[in-house]
């Protein structure tokens, strides 16, 4: 597998990349900070990735970086067959309700520009006959809930797009894997109250990687969220309106 990872320096992206490194996949890293990327590249080489692990800067808030970054990845890897996007922003509902700038940035990064990046990836993968695009979204996009109204809105939109992408291009060889992530203990969620069923990055990474290998269009991680989602979807509005969940 020749994979490009946006978000490999931390959290779930780091955990997935390490598992891929250990089994000998070729990796190319995209991220915001070149020093951070270089340190992660070394770490992945130590975990077994074939050196040198290349990297270049790419920022979800700067869509003009997408095409050059993907071109560079293709050049260094000799073409890629898999793209994994774990990067995203998070802020609490309280903060997003009171800070319009934060809200605007989050919606741009998690929805508009993530889709912009996916479109760049789609064109490149289809041009070479297909490949896998794995994007980490969230169970917050499953059903509107009070603590994640704004964050969830962007994630719901992203899930909608990913499902459509799968319908439209799977027959042409593009395998879309959308990850519906529950709460995972990473730097992004540090400081939040840890809800029940919280997952650990490494276990979640193993599950996502299995879904990528099998080309499964949807994966819930941690797995229990699949059943929580069934319940959530079936709850009447009148009930959900009363819950603080």
């Amino acid at each position: 597998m020749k994979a490009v990872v946006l978000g490999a320096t931390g959290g779930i992206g780091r955990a997935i990349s390490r598992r891929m490194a250990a089994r000998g996949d070729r990796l190319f890293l995209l991220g915001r900070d070149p020093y951070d990327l270089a340190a992660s590249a070394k770490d992945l080489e130590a975990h077994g990735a074939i050196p040198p692990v290349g990297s270049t800067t790419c920022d979800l808030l700067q869509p003009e970086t997408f095409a050059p970054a993907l071109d560079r990845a293709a050049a260094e890897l000799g073409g890629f067959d898999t793209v994994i996007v774990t990067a995203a922003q998070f802020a609490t509902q309280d903060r997003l309700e009171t800070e319009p700038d934060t809200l605007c940035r989050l919606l741009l990064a998690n929805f508009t520009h993530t889709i912009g990046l996916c479109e760049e990836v789609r064109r490149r993968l289809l041009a070479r006959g297909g490949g896998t695009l794995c994007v980490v979204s969230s169970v917050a996009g499953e059903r509107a809930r009070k603590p994640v109204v704004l964050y969830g809105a962007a994630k719901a939109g992203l899930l909608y797009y990913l499902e459509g992408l799968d319908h439209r291009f799977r027959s042409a060889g593009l395998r879309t894997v959308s990850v519906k992530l529950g709460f995972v203990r990473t730097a992004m969620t540090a400081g939040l109250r840890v809800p029940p069923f919280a997952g650990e990055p490494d276990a979640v990474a193993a599950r996502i990687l299995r879904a990528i290998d099998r080309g499964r269009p949807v994966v819930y991680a941690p797995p229990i969220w699949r059943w929580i989602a069934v319940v959530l979807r079936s709850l009447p509005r009148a009930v959900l309106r009363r819950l603080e969940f």
Partner: protein
Amino acid sequence: MLSEELLTGWGRTPIVPGVVRISRDLEAATDGASASRGLGRAYGDAALPRRAGAIVACTRLADRVLHLDPEAGKLRAEAGLSLARLDALLLARGLACPVVPGTEQVTLGGMVAADVHGKNQHEAGCFGDHVRGLRVRVGDGRILEIDRDNERELFLATLGGMGLTGHILEVELGLTRIPSPWIWQETVPVHGLDALLAHLHEASRTWPFTVAWLDGLARDPAGARGIVFRGRWAEHREAPPGLPRARRSIRIGRDAPDWLLGRTLVGAFNRVYAATAGRRPGPVSPSRFFFPLDSITDWNRLYGRRGFTQYQCVVPADRPTAALRVLETVGRHGEASFLSVLKDFGRPGPGLLSFAMPGTTLALDLPLGSRSQALVDALNDVVAAEGGRIYLAKDLLTRPEHFRAMEPRLDAWLAVRRKWDPEGRIATALSVRLFGDAP
């Protein structure tokens, strides 16, 4: 990112509310923090905040390997790298961490701070003996690269300095080449403390890894059951093919009732353990040999809500009856240690305040209760009189006057600490208790 959390040591008492700052970027996390904390395996108060609400940097997410040179046997990594992850990387490459403690759930930074020892202490020394360099953030906020040549004094004060001389950000470490990723283990059942110590010392003459277990429930240590474990890295031809499989550990997930680890159950366990110990010599996985307790992720919860402490001391080699006196003191107080481990030390630790000295170390697990303070006081009387000392990574109840009586090196270490942190910005609950730091 800051989060308010209730923090405890591995012994689960006391519980202190702290403000934890966790980040992949240790420079950011430690900026202005009063202490660093890794995986929380120090038993007592070594990784607890100096006061409720003090900021503690958590290193857990800063776990990248920054440089690995298998040919030169050298590694540099961020301080939050766990020994479990490091071992998984190294064993597959015919390398091993030169010194490992009794659990894999520790970070590099924690191993430096406690200058940990392992079953090969008599031969390989302490962890600090293999540390080639450190990147630290000292009390005034500066970040320094230190080693045996650059800022030697600070470097040696940091090995075994319990994280109190500065935040440990990165660690450079020498590695050991191994013939196979398996351990050849042999066990020798023994009767009585004298025989146990004799066998332990004999084993250490020819074996790189040795340790002994004693049935701490025996009324008379002179007649107690014991087992001496000895091991070495298995030769290639002795080892099973491939790598040992990653072990699945079980999780209890809740507090056991306080009565669970009472005399009856522990006594039964000890009888079974002693009876099955005469296993045939053979290869075992390193995790089974080095980290037997890790098979239960949260075994500390077996002690129930009351929590527990571990009393670990070392007594000098020229006091052959000191170990017996320590064990007798436990018995006289009507207490029983549920897990008693003995190990001979060969040479002193490299740090200014390292725990190890040539002699014998004893580690005793004790449930916490109203009589624990009196017992630890009595044990410290014995150890101080014998010229021994205690292990700060385990300690919770030692009084400052006892610690001072055991540590002629304390003033020299405190002077180095003061030099680099004159305003006393770095402190833990342990340093408040033992060194009189402001809370």
